[in-house]
């Protein structure tokens, strides 16, 4: 059976895949459906949902189209979530591999740095970083990655510690390969599967962190974000709760979708492992 079909056999994987596909479609289609600036005023302020079908989800305090904001917000959430997770996984895998492969002093130093990062709450780290450097998309991605690379680093190191004793690593040394090349080209790819299993958790956490930063006003001000929408709606929470609830639901669905799909991938990989 193909991995894809095995993946689609578990109900949580199907649910996750459906949510993520819908989300990706929304993110990709945003400029098609809403080509104009989502931050431009589109109608009367504080229009409730389902009143005017040209503005199906109503408008916010400034009269901006909530559905357009939601679509464009999906782009930011996904882009930041994926970019931050990819950065964290890449940095973590490389640092963990170097620490585990080099051993000795290099390992000590790298792992103490990892410890230091792990003792500071990730969100605080992101908050401090964005406050100092200033909010922009790249900075937000870096800030989130800053608190998320330690997990992948530890997993990669643990895996590398067992892989480096294998004969093919000795074989690479025998043919005179440079230690750095052995670490990154021979060892790292073989250490990746358990590291990649972390990716769904990291993507989900990154999306939430991005939302939280935007909620606190530390997101990129030139982009619509779900966290920013929730913060915006907070001022009128009693009179127009939908302004906070709609992006909140989008956030919950996204994180749920990422988790479920990730779970499905891990399950698929586990089945394949037990089969082989």
């Amino acid at each position, binding site marked *: 059976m193909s991995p894809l079909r095995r993946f689609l056999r578990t109900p949580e994987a199907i649910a996750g895949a459906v949510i993520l596909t819908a989300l990706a479609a929304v993110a990709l289609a945003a400029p098609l459906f809403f080509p104009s600036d989502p931050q431009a005023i589109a109608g009367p302020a504080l229009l409730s949902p389902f009143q005017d079908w040209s503005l199906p989800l109503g408008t916010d305090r400034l009269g901006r189209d909530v559905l357009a904001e939601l679509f464009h917000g999906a782009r930011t959430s996904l882009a930041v979530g994926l970019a931050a997770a990819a950065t964290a996984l890449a940095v973590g895998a490389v640092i963990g591999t170097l620490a585990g492969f080099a051993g000795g002093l290099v390992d000590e130093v790298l792992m103490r740095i990892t410890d230091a990062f792990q003792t500071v709450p990730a969100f605080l780290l992101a908050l401090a970083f964005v406050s100092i450097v200033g909010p922009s998309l790249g900075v937000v991605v870096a800030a989130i990655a800053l608190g998320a690379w330690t997990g992948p680093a530890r997993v990669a190191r643990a895996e590398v510690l067992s892989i480096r004793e*294998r*004969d*093919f690593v*000795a*074989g*690479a*040394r*025998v*043919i*005179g*390969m*440079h230690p750095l090349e052995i670490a990154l080209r*021979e060892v790292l*790819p*073989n250490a990746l599967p358990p590291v990649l299993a972390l990716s769904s958790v990291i993507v989900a956490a990154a999306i939430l962190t991005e939302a939280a930063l935007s909620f606190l006003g530390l997101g990129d001000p030139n982009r619509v974000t779900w966290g920013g929408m929730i913060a915006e709606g907070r001022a009128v929470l009693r009179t127009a709760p939908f302004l906070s609830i709609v992006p909140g639901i989008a956030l919950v669905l996204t994180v749920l979708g990422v988790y479920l799909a990730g779970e499905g991938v891990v399950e698929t990989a586990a089945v394949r492992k037990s089969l082989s």
Partner: protein
Amino acid sequence: MTSPLLAVSGLTKRYSSGGKIIAAADDVSFHIEHGETLALAGPSGSGKSTIARLILRLIEADAGRIEFEGSDFLSLNGAALRDRRAHLQMVFQDPLAALNPRATVARVLDDPLRIHHIASRAERPRRIVALLERVGLSAGLAGRAIHEISGGQRQRVAIARAIATKPSLVVLDEAVSALDVSVRAQILRLLLDLQREERIAYLFISHDLGVVRAIAHRIAILDGGRIAESGDARTVIDAPQSAIGKALVAAAPKLSRIERDAS
């Protein structure tokens, strides 16, 4: 009189295990001439593989000297050591474990050619095909993954990789032990052909005295990290003097009789 290709003297490596110090190699001395095969035989745990790994600098010796091609091999480090490795290669027991499981045959053979600047990028595919043919494999195998080919083919690839840099000495650590009998004979013949044509010396590590008798010129029998007995391979195997040599020789025919009875 030229110096031997490899001269090992006083090689010692100790491990501590549970508070006790165990010598995996204890004052081991031997030499190998150009184009010669020296067998290291001994029961498991006698230090055969430790000595192989010491010679290849995969582990560092506690004491002793290794002279390879007339210079001190243990004093080399970094780039100088990596360069010299082109002349001193190794084939491992289990080729599946000894080759990157994610690599293709072509990549495995490309690495030594690239690292030691033996052929330009454009020239390397042809060299890879030549290497494959040299060890009796078809050129079509180049694109296959390591896990897709048979154990015998894999060991041939490992040998091709070892001879890619035209080494003067190849350490064969139980290189044929994991192969079934018919494949084993083919691989031994390949090794003998390579030795005859390219004057490669072998350090042939094995517990199988039948194979040793067929391929080795000289033999050193190890016991507990020490060389118990050494000399001409056939002389020693036909009339062992040491207790461990006698025990090994006595065990060998018994095993083959068990194999025959079982079949």
